[in-house]
């Protein structure tokens, strides 16, 4: 059994952005040499997410706009206050909540050295609190 981890960095161009990472994940699965197993894709941050959806600009826009409606920027969140442990204002409550709604990881089978995705599927790194330098993990287990 092999256990292989890769950490990738990513930096959005906008404050809120869905960034396609399908090719990066496929590429690592291919490099890993795992023929049959499982692949996890996991973000390392609490104001980002990992998700799967169809790579159409209209769908991407709908996802972001719907999250904005559910989690409005100007709501008086509990997190919006001075945090002495940081010395900063906790101004990113919407990012935390969108991250919570999206989830921090996705899981995919690896069969015959191929990452198994549905025909319309793409994997996204979801930035909800940009612009920052971010990291996510790709973890492949198998034989």
């Amino acid at each position: 059994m092999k256990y292989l981890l890769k950490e990738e960095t990513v930096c959005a161009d906008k404050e809120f952005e869905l960034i396609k990472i399908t090719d990066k994940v496929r590429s690592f699965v291919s490099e890993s040499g795992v023929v049959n197993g499982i692949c996890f894709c996991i973000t390392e941050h609490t104001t980002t997410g990992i998700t799967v959806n169809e790579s159409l600009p209209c769908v991407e826009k709908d996802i972001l706009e719907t999250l904005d409606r559910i989690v409005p920027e100007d709501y008086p969140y509990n997190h919006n206050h001075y945090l002495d442990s940081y010395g900063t204002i906790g101004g990113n409550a919407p990012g935390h909540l969108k991250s919570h709604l999206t989830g921090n990881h996705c899981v995919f089978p690896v069969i015959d050295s191929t990452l198994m995705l549905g025909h319309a599927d793409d994997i996204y790194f979801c930035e909800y609190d940009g612009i920052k330098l971010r990291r996510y993990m790709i973890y492949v287990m198998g034989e």
Partner: protein
Amino acid sequence: MLIDAHVRPALFEPICRDKSRLDSRCDAMHYHKMNPTGMDLLKKQYNLAGITGVFLLPSDCSFETGSTEISNDEIAKIVALDPDLYYGFASVDPRDRNSAAELIRSFKDLGLCGLYLNTSRLHIYPEDARIFAILDICREYGKPVIFHAGLSFEKDALAKFSRPIEFESVIAKYSDINFCLTHMGWPWVQETSALLLKYPNAYANTALMNFDGPYQIYRKVFREDMGELWVEHNLSEKIIFGSGSPRIRPVRSKRGLDSLGFSEETRKKIYYGNAMRFLGSKEN
């Protein structure tokens, strides 16, 4: 055009390569759990907010601590990386007898464009002969002055030394120097407003990060602590946008201010024109 007139470059990567210096800086300035940020990433963040100019404020309490937290040379180093974007301010510790020489060096040799002082950390009142000696140099070189005003989260800082009304005699005495009080002098916002109303050379910046998020704190300060129309009718030429980064991200701070619904004319002044006039530009 948008100028952020209140940025502490404590976590700018080019001046963070000495780990022990970075640690002592963050301890003194009370910044925690944050990592240094590269210049390219900062540029992206400024572009996102539409920021075209940044005032960099140093930190010098060295008479007591033995070392500056952010030196004038470090400010000059960052300015040199992008002189069209950055406006570097100098700082000195007026208790140090070399402070006059250091300030002259900062203006003449480093080309810094003004002075920043935090009397809360220095534990001296603005009306102090040692500060007057420093202000005489600013007058001679025609440089504006930013005073920290109101509560400071920095280590050992006491707000009584920077209560806005304490600056009145200084602003009156040096009527040919432009002064900017930071943080609207919070929590003494009405004292700050009074100084802005009376003295043509008095300005204040909007770096507010005390209670709530930016939407709530700006509404509280500019619509409740201050009368509903004070900014539009009297103070539109006296308030300068400043985020207070890194305690709050500039894009977020600006969104809070935008939400107040000031007229476009007032917003243009707050976001750009007033900062340029404060610096001495005749065009705005």
